């Protein structure tokens, strides 16, 4: 059988060759062949992130950390971590000739004799304050939306550690200038350590290399500030981000969004541009604040001297709440065998922060133990749909806020013309009563909002159209909400109260952990008590029928008066004048 070759193309006599790549392509190809970037990038450049402003709060922390690294490197070029005594001879006249530590003198040089030094120093300080504040609001967002549930519990733990390390990093940082305010802070920290029973004095002597202040503390804090903690922070931030990529970002529920997918925009070009742009905004805001708002004017505090102190000696804001606890603590102290036990210091400043941090760390585990919920969650929950969870955090926030205010009791007293003693007495009670009130109010508030959602699903939204019946009674017309809105409102799970298995097995032997399970069941019941569950499909169907029936009853009114759509914007009304007038 002969083959007709007349139809075979004759042009492809040679193998196909790729078009010569452009310059960028050539570089990318060079890198790909050596680093294998293509495979890694192919997936990650197209990685999808959901779009919501609250998902960008953690980014503020990330970018302010980058700003901290950049400005911090600048500062290390001129700062001397030394407590050697020198005579200041720089250009700030009111301190010239004063004896001070080399650390203080070099910080003054950064402020007055290094070009741009003061602005960078202030930007570094502002960025530090913003770094910790943004970690906190990011934490609140993650908590309130339930994003810390399985599988993200460990990322929550990492985040908490970042918050703790960031706080310590801040403290070691603002202590470095060795000015009057920071020296007072180090003195206070020395007292806190010494309040620890038995080992307190040892801890203090080890850290200070002898009795306070010694000549060791500034170099040691410097090493902790520029090497130890930043290293840990970098490692934990990397782990935090890797877990974020591995888990994928959570998203709000809505049509098309499930536990199995992520709906949003890809990394390139959308999020690369958004996140990159946000970095410059964060840098810009900290730079503007550093340029315009004077922070920590060490030249006014002067060098540290244990004989001096200034009114308004407060730590930076993130250390403010334990300081508040210290300020309102009654002076409890007892002596045993010649040793003092300073509970007035030990309880508020060592025990309380440790306790609060432990609670924070354990929140996801406590919740999942109580609710018995071990499922994976990638869809977020609205705060109202977890009333007890929301109320718990608001209660903790209230505690924090009151302690915070107590830490500024003297500033409140002078700016609001009030009595510092009365503020202190008020706070002693309020830190216990306030969180309880806040818990109750928030919980009931959430449940009321749930009821509102239920009413919207079953009875529709309020049109604002008032109807008058033939008998003369007035009622407001309700219309059904859109399908999309109804889907979003109902895209949540029903709460399941944990019920323990039977307390005894077939042979009548009590099951292990029976009593604990009983407690767990009680807590679970309290956790979900009074929550409004979403309506069932049957209830929704009935509501729809009811609405149709109602509409039929009032149909006679249609064509007589406005049906409300003229005003609510639900459909176009062009050419449709108000009827029957």
């Amino acid at each position, binding site marked *: 059988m002969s083959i007709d070759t007349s139809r075979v193309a004759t042009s492809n006599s040679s193998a196909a060759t790729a078009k010569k790549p452009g310059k960028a392509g050539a570089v990318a190809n060079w890198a790909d062949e050596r680093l294998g970037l293509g495979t890694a990038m192919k997936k990650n450049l197209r990685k999808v992130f*959901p779009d*919501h*402003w609250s998902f*960008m*709060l953690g*980014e*503020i922390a990330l970018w302010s950390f980058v700003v901290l690294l950049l400005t911090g490197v600048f500062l290390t070029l001129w700062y001397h971590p030394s407590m050697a005594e020198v005579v200041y001879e720089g250009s700030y*006249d*009111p*301190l*010239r*000739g*004063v004896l001070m530590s080399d650390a203080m003198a070099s910080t003054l040089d950064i402020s007055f004799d290094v070009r741009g030094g*003061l602005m960078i120093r*202030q930007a570094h300080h*502002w960025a530090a304050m*913003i770094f910790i*504040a*943004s970690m906190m609001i990011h934490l609140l967002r993650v908590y309130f939306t339930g994003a810390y549930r399985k599988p993200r519990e460990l990322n929550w733990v990492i985040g908490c550690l970042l918050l703790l390390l960031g706080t310590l990093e801040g403290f070691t940082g603002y202590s470095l200038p060795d000015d*009057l*305010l920071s020296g007072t802070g180090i003195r206070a920290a020395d007292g806190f350590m010494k309040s620890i029973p038995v080992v307190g004095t040892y801890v203090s002597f080890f850290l200070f290399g002898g009795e306070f202040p010694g000549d060791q503390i500034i170099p040691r804090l410097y090493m902790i500030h520029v090497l130890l903690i930043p290293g840990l922070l970098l490692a934990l931030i990397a782990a935090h981000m890797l877990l974020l990529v591995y888990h994928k970002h959570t998203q709000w529920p809505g049509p098309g969004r499930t536990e199995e997918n992520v709906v*949003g*925009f890809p990394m390139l070009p*959308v999020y690369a541009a958004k996140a990159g742009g*946000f970095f410059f*905004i*964060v840098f810009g*805001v*900290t730079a503007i*604040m550093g*340029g*315009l*708002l*004077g*922070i*920590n*004017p060490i*030249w006014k*505090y*002067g060098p540290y001297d244990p*004989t*001096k*102190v*200034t*009114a*308004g*000696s*407060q730590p*930076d*804001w993130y250390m*403010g709440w334990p300081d508040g606890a210290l300020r309102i603590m009654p002076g409890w102290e007892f002596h045993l065998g010649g040793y003092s036990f300073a509970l007035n210091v030990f309880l508020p400043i060592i025990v309380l922060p440790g306790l609060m941090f432990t609670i924070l760390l354990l929140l996801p585990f406590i919740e999942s133990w109580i609710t018995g919920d071990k499922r994976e969650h990638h869809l977020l929950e609205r705060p109202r749909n977890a009333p007890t969870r929301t109320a718990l955090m608001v209660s903790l926030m209230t505690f924090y806020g009151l302690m915070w205010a107590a*830490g*500024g009791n*003297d*500033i409140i*007293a*002078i700016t609001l013309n009030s*009595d*510092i*003693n009365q503020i202190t007495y008020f706070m002693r009670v309020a830190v216990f009563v306030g969180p309880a009130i806040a818990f109750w109010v928030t919980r009931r508030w959430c449940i009321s909002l749930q009821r509102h959602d239920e009413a919207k699903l079953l009875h529709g939204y309020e049109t604002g159209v008032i109807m008058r019946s033939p008998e003369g009674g007035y009622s407001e017309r309700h219309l059904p909400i859109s399908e999309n809105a109804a889907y979003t409102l109902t895209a949540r799970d029903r709460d399941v109260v944990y019920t323990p298995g039977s307390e005894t097995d077939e042979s009548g032997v009590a099951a292990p952990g029976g009593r604990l399970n009983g407690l767990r069941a009680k807590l679970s019941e309290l956790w979900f008590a009074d929550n409004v569950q979403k309506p069932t499909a049957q209830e929704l169907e009935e509501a729809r029928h009811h609405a149709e029936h109602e509409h039929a009853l009032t149909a006679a009114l249609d064509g007589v008066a406005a049906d409300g759509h003229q005003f609510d914007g639900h459909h176009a009304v062009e050419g449709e004048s108000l009827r029957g007038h």
Partner: protein
Amino acid sequence: MRILNSAAGRLSRLRRGRLAGALLLMVGLLAAGGLWTAVMTPASAEKTQDLASQVEEGRKLFLVGCSTCHGTNGEGILTDRGNNLGPSLVGVGAAAVDFQVGTGRMPMAQPGAQAPRKDVAYSDEETAALAAYVATLGPGPAIPAESDYSIDGLDSEAQEAAIVRGGQLFLTNCTACHNFEGSGGAMPNGGYAPTVRGVDSKYIYEALLTGPQTMPTFSNGNLTPDQKRDIIAYLNNLNDSAGVGGFGMGSLGPVAEGLFAWIVGIGGLVGFAVWIAAHTTRSSKKKVQA
């Protein structure tokens, strides 16, 4: 004034001698008599006449405006519980009156934790008359002269040295209550150390000298007149060179800084986050629903 004080100090060291009392009496009588004859020339008699009439005017003002609390002879009035309605003014000196009345603290509008600074109720002449009258109740610090609290008379190098000394003295003696920039601070039971920024140098000097309200008295033994002057020079220098780092946010320390970090810093950045999230990718004017 300074010479008188130091003379009194030297005299007081001789007080313990056995004959010191009698000797002192002799010296005093002789000096008083001698002065009377030597000084009572017609010109100074006129001055004395002026002073007497000023004191008399001051007494009348005092009876109207002050005696309700301080007593008709400035002896002070006790309440039933033994507290002071108004303290005795014997020995407080003209400086105390000039400070309290000149800054509007006296007359007090109402009893309270502390007399606040307010609008001045008396004219300069009336204040001077009140001061002259109260000075006659007993010896006390006189109103300082401008040379006491001004460094204008010094050369620039000495001025700079005075400011440096004053700064360190201020941080040692004053900041514990008045804050590192003199912005003021809280005191127990509703009291407060008021701001010392923008206060007339004379009044700061008088306050140091007389220790108004809860403030301790910084006698010339505690802070020499030169040291007082240096502190005032430092404060004036702060006023002139304010705002090196930018807006100071009330100069209240880290509490105000924290407030700005949250409101300006975090508030602004969250605003930007909302703005970025609201502007998402799109090819038409309508927002893409993601």
